[in-house]
C-alpha cells in the first residue's frame, strides 16, 4: 500500500474497489488485524486499532479472504464456536445460531460438514459467523464472489438490515452492479494508491467533469464507467488479440 488514507463515517455502506492486485484484500487484512501495517495508523470507532485491540474486535465482524471456516465442523457447530470465541453467553449463541441458520436457509442440513457445503453456502455461513456477535463494523472481502442470485439476495437483505440499524459496512467486491446498488460511498484504489473516494454522486460528477459531460449524461454514468475511467482502462479499449485463439 502507498500512503493510503481514508475515513468511513458511521452508518455508511462503503464499497472499496480496485483491479486485481490493487491491494483491497491487503487493506482489509490490515484493518482487521490479520496483517501488520509497516507504517501508519488505523482507527476504528474512534480508537486506535492494533492486532491486540481485543475490546475493539468484539465490535467488529469480518469475512476475510478464504472465509476463515473450520471445515470439519457442521454449520451449527461452527457458529456456536464463533459465538463463544467472541465471548457470547452459551444461550445467546445457541439462539442466534438457530436464527442465523434459518435466515440463511442453512438449517435444512444440520448434520452436514462445512467441507461438504457449496461455495454459496460457505459464503452465507461466513457472513453469519461475522455477524453473530452483533458487530458495529463489518468488513467483507468479496462476499458475493461465487454466490448465486438467491444467496446474493439473502446476503443483500441482511446487509441492508444492518445498515438500517446503524452498523457500518466496509465491502470489497468485483461485482460493480452490486456495489452500485448497495453502497452509498465508494473508494477506488489502484496499485496501492487511493485514486477516488466519495459518494457515488461525487464520483459521477468528478468523472463527468473530466469527460466534459453534464446533466443527464452525468446521471447515466455507471459505476463500471467511473471505475474504468478512474483506473485508466476503458471498456472499449482495444485488447491485444491472442494469435492462437
Amino acid at each position, binding site marked *: 500500500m502507498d500512503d493510503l488514507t481514508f475515513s468511513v463515517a458511521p452508518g455508511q455502506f462503503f464499497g472499496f474497489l480496485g483491479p486485481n492486485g490493487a491491494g483491497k484484500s491487503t487493506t482489509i487484512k490490515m484493518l482487521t488485524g490479520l*496483517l501488520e501495517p509497516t507504517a501508519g495508523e488505523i482507527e476504528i470507532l474512534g480508537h486506535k486499532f492494533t492486532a491486540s485491540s481485543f475490546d475493539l474486535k468484539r465490535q467488529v465482524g469480518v469475512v476475510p479472504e478464504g472465509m476463515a*471456516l473450520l471445515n470439519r465442523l457442521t454449520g451449527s457447530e461452527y457458529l456456536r464456536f464463533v459465538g463463544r470465541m467472541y465471548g457470547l453467553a452459551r444461550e445467546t449463541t445457541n439462539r442466534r445460531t438457530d436464527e442465523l441458520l434459518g435466515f440463511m436457509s442453512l438449517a435444512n442440513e444440520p448434520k452436514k460438514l462445512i467441507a461438504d457445503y457449496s461455495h454459496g453456502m460457505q459464503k452465507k455461513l461466513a457472513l453469519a459467523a461475522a455477524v453473530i456477535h452483533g458487530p458495529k463494523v463489518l468488513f467483507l472481502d468479496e462476499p458475493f464472489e461465487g454466490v448465486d442470485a438467491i444467496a446474493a439476495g439473502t446476503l443483500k437483505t441482511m446487509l441492508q438490515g444492518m445498515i438500517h440499524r446503524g452498523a457500518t459496512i466496509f465491502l470489497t467486491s468485483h461485482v460493480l452492479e452490486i456495489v452500485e446498488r448497495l453502497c452509498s460511498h465508494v473508494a477506488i484504489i489502484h496499485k496501492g494508491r487511493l485514486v477516488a473516494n466519495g459518494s457515488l454522486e461525487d464520483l459521477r460528477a468528478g468523472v463527468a467533469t473530466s469527460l466534459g459531460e453534464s446533466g443527464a449524461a452525468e446521471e447515466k454514468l455507471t459505476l463500471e464507467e467511473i471505475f474504468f475511467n478512474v483506473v485508466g482502462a476503458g471498456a472499449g479499449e482495444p485488447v491485444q488479440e491472442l494469435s492462437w485463439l
Partner: protein
Amino acid sequence: MAVMTSALAREQYAALARMRLQMLSNSLRLSGGKFNLAARIFRIVFFSTVGLMIAVGLGAGVFAIARDNQLRILPVFLWAVMMLWQLAPIALASFQEPVDLSLLLRFPVSFGSYVLEYLVFGLFDTSSILGGFCLAGIWTGLVLARPDLAGWAAMGMLLFAAFNVLLLRMIFAWIDRWLAQRKTREVLGIIFLFLLLGAQLMNPALYGTRERPSRKTIATMKQAARTAESVQRALPPGLAAGAVQAAHQGSAAAAAACLAGLVLYGVGAGSLLGIRLRAEYRGESLGEAPRVTAKVQERRRVLELGGPIGAIVEKEFRYLGRSGVMLYSLLAPLIMLFVLGRGGQTGGAERFALPLGAAYGFLGLTRLVYNSLGGEGAGIQLYFVSPTPFRTVTLAKNLVQFVLFLFEFALVVAIVVWRFGLPDRQMLELTACWLLFALPLQLAAGNLLSIKMAYRMTLTRLSREQGAAGNGLLSLLIQLAIVGTGAVVYFCLRYLERPGLTVWVFLALALGAMATWLRGLANSDRIAMRRRDVLIESLAKAE
C-alpha cells in the same frame, strides 16, 4: 503402455520434474524451505545409514548361510525385510511426507501415466530406502558366497522389492479410503482389535512361560512350524527365496516358476492398488469432503466448559473424532507397543518398559502437539480476528493434548502391566517425575513449532502433506533429546551410585520445564502476531 510412453506423456513427465525443481528452488527463498530441504536430506542420509547398517548385518548373515549351503534359512531374512518394509511406515507415521498428485487430474494425463507418477514420486520414502538397502545387502551377501547365483538373486530381489512397494502403497491407499468413512473406519477398528488379540495370543507360543513346555506342546509347536514353513513357501518372501534355492540346485524351471509366482503377487497387489487409483483418477476426493462422515451426529454440549477455552476444547475433540487419520496416528504407537513389546522376563530390559512405552506413546501425539494449528486451514484467521488472545487458543490446545496424553499413558500403563507385570515402585516414581519434566517441555516446544513451522494437515488422508519434513525432523530430535536427557540423568546418577538423586533432578528439571512452558504460553501472543501472515499463508492459502 503406449500411452505411458507417448510424446505427450514424456512431455508431462519432463514438465512435472521441472515443476518440482522450480518449486524446490522457489521454496529455498524462505528459511523454512531451506530447513525443510535440509530435513529431507537428513532423513534420506539418516535412514540410508540405518539401512546400510542393517544391510551389512543381513548381508553377512546371508553370506554365512550361503557359504554353508544353508539357503533354506534364506526366507527368514526376507520375511524380516518384508516386516521392516511394511511396518516402518506405521512406526514412523508421524514423520512421513508423501505426495499429492490429485492436482494432475485437471490435465490430460492418462491413467497409466498417473499410476507411474504415483509410484515414482513416493519411491524414496523411508521404508523403500530401508528395504532397498536390506535387499541390496542380502543380494551382495549371496553373490559374494555364490557368484553363480547373481542373476537369479538379482531378479528375485528386484521382483520382491517391486512387490513390497506395490503392497505398501496398496495397503496405505486402502487404509486412506477406509479411514475417510465412519462405517469402514469402525470395521477397520474391529479388524485391528482382532489382529491385536491374535498377536497377543501368539505371545505365549512365541516366548513361552518360565516352565519348560510339555512334550505335547513342543510337538504341537513343531507341527505348527512345519505347517507355517510349507505355507510361507507360497508367499512372496518364500517365493523370492525359493527362486534362489532352486537356482542353487540347478533347477532353472523351478526358479522361474517361483519368480512367476512373485510376479503374480505383484500383479495382485498392483491390481488392488489400481482399483483405488482408478477411483482417484475418476475424481473421487477423500480430501476435506468425505461422503459418509458428513452425516455426523450432532451432539450439543459435549463438555460443559465455558468461554473460548471450552469452545476450542470441544472443537478439538470434534476434529479428532472425525479424523480417522489422527485417531490412527494416536493409536499406531500403541499398536506397535502391543504387538512388538515382548513380555516375560528378558534380562532386566523390561524394567524400562514403562518409561520407554510412555516416550514411544507420545509419538502418536507428535503431529497434534508439534503442528497443533495444521488442521485449521483457513479457519486460522478466526483466531486473529476474534477478541480471543492467541495464548488462550494455545492453552486450550495444550489442555486437549494433556488429556490425550493422559489417555495414551493410561493405555501404555495397561499394556505394560499386561505384558510385563506391575512396574517396580522406583521406576514408577522415576517415570512420573520424568513425565513432569518431559510433558511441559514437549508442549512448550510444540507450541513454538506449531507457530513457527506450521504446515497444513489434511485430516482425511494418511499422507498428503507438504512442508512436513522440517517440522517432523525437529519434533523427532526434540523428543529424542528429552528421552536422552532422562536416560543420561538416570544412568549418570546410577554410575555415581547416587540413584536416589534421580527423582530430585527430574523434579528440578520439571520446574524448569514448567517455567519454560508458562513463558512460552505468555509469549505465544507476540510470536503468533509477528508470524500471523506467514501462518495464514501456510495454512489458508493451500486450501
